């Protein structure tokens, strides 16, 4: 008898799973109770870079600190590679932490140790002997491009270099998961890009799963293949980065998105925008086209469909999670006829649109 194996659908294996996670602070004594995480459910797939994005105070740090047990859930489960973190005794937790690296916004390097000795620290903590440590640390410094800075103290390094040391340190124990808490928030845009490139390389070459939190859309859009949007302790949207940001459903996602979907309006235009159209006003609309449509001759069709009186005020082409998108800010007369034609056109093409306001 011939048995054919059923076709395998590539189901993502979870590295981190949050199940109905609730985290409350305070509630004892004078402190009022505060719910920092309010029923979080999400999965960070193995081998992927998963981003969690949200505004300040949304609960991002709290969420990531649950993963290595720096914080305990009030209820619900956090499962890392099949192990329920909440079940672990203190010793088990320490073992887990040696398999989970972490990098920080302010690097948290020991000022009293050289770059080399900082990277050695987790290995010393794990009780390794000097020789093993020496053999491990040198290649790590090379990996992060700082082989020549081995004897430098953190005070003698730039922010980007410090974060590279932080990354080398986080990789020292050969973890299966890397947690990043705003690792690029203290860096300038260029250095941010180089650190993100490094994380991407590590993810690809070492197959390391990365869970990163950030308030910068730029970070997520550059390296995360998965994203969760967190707002006031709740995950409001969740999925592949491209899907979430090409069809943003939640208000928070939309506003985070508009910060990076290029084409910022000049101040003198945006200052005069009204919420409602006045007599003879023009509508200012942001159009975002994703994937293939990004390169279609949309402007030509726009003019053809809406009418000749379409002005282009700003525009940009960029990519999200490696896929292209373009954005345009256009204006046209806000009369009922033109608006209806525009709406029809948008509906046909599935363009993402956002009415910015009405101006003269």
């Amino acid at each position, binding site marked *: 008898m011939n048995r054919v194996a059923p076709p395998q659908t590539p189901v993502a294996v979870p590295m981190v799973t949050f199940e109905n996670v609730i985290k409350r602070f305070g509630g004892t004594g004078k402190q009022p109770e505060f719910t920092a995480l309010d029923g979080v459910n999400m999965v960070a797939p193995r081998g992927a870079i998963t981003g969690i994005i949200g505004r300040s105070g949304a609960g991002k740090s709290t969420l990531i600190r649950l993963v290595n047990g720096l914080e305990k859930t009030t209820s619900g489960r956090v499962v890392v590679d099949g192990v329920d973190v909440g079940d672990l005794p203190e010793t088990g937790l*320490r073992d887990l932490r*040696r398999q989970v690296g*972490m990098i*920080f916004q302010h690097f948290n390097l020991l*000022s009293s140790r050289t770059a080399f000795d900082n990277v050695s*620290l987790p290995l010393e903590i794990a009780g390794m002997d000097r020789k093993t440590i020496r053999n491990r640390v040198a290649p790590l410094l090379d990996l992060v491009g700082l082989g020549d800075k081995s004897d430098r103290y*953190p005070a003698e390094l730039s922010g980007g270099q410090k974060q590279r040391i932080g990354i080398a340190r986080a990789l020292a124990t050969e973890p299966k998961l890397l947690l990043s808490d705003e690792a690029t928030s203290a860096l300038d845009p260029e250095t941010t890009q180089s650190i993100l490139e490094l994380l991407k390389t590590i993810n690809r070459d070492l197959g390391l799963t990365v869970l990163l939190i950030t308030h910068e859309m730029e970070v997520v859009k550059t390296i995360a293949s998965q994203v969760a949007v967190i707002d006031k302790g709740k995950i409001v949207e969740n999925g592949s980065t491209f899907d979430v940001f090409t069809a943003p459903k939640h208000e928070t996602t939309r506003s985070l998105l508009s910060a990076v979907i290029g084409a910022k309006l000049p101040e003198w235009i945006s200052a005069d925008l009204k919420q409602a159209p006045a007599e003879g006003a023009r509508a200012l609309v942001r159009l975002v086209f994703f994937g293939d449509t990004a390169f279609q001759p949309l402007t030509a069709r726009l003019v053809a469909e809406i009418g000749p009186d379409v002005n282009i005020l700003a525009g940009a082409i960029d990519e999200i999670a490696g896929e292209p998108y373009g954005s345009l800010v256009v204006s046209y007369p806000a009369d009922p006829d033109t608006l209806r034609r525009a709406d029809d056109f948008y509906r046909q093409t599935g363009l993402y649109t956002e009415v910015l306001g009405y101006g003269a």
Partner: protein
Amino acid sequence: MAPDMLVSLLWKAFLQTMYMVAAAGFIGSLIGLPIGIFLATSGKGELFPAPTVNKIVGATVNAARSTPFIILVVAIIPFTRLIAGTSIGTAAAIVPLTIATIPFVARLIETSIREVDKGLIEAARAMGATPFQIVTKVLLAEARPGIILGLTLTLVSLVGYSAMVGAVGGGGLGDLGIRYGYQRFMPEVMLAVVVVLIVVVQAIQSAGDMLARHFDKRTRKN
């Protein structure tokens, strides 16, 4: 006073002062260090949480620190006799000096440790460090320049305190200054004592500063 006589008196008093300062500084720091570490790490939600004991130890340290030294010397005479076998002389003077040093060192160590960036404790916990490893590998290492400066301050203060133990026959430079310079009205002895004390304090301070600077890598040099 004949110069060679003055020199020999000064030398003897200098050695007594050094002996008292070194012995009390060493023993006092040895006992004060763990107390300081305890104070810095045993508050609520800290590495070794024991808030009640922390409060009791803290209050005791405060009480000891607010007792004027000269009163302490007299108050603990029975204890001094128990430890040193006698209540007068240089060896006996070391007991109250040590007792005064302990809370002083404890608070200085506590302060230095508390100044260590909390982010480093967080990072070490995230690496899987035990609380003990956090103390030895992170807190003490990072607090080292502060601790050295604190111990320097302790030694300098001890030089001053040691001048007061003449009251229990402790000898030393301060005692020499009082007995010859003041009571027998020999201003040249007083002057010589003051000069030697200034030199001693300067030397201790410079050595401490140098050592602290050597271990302080927090800012870029040159």
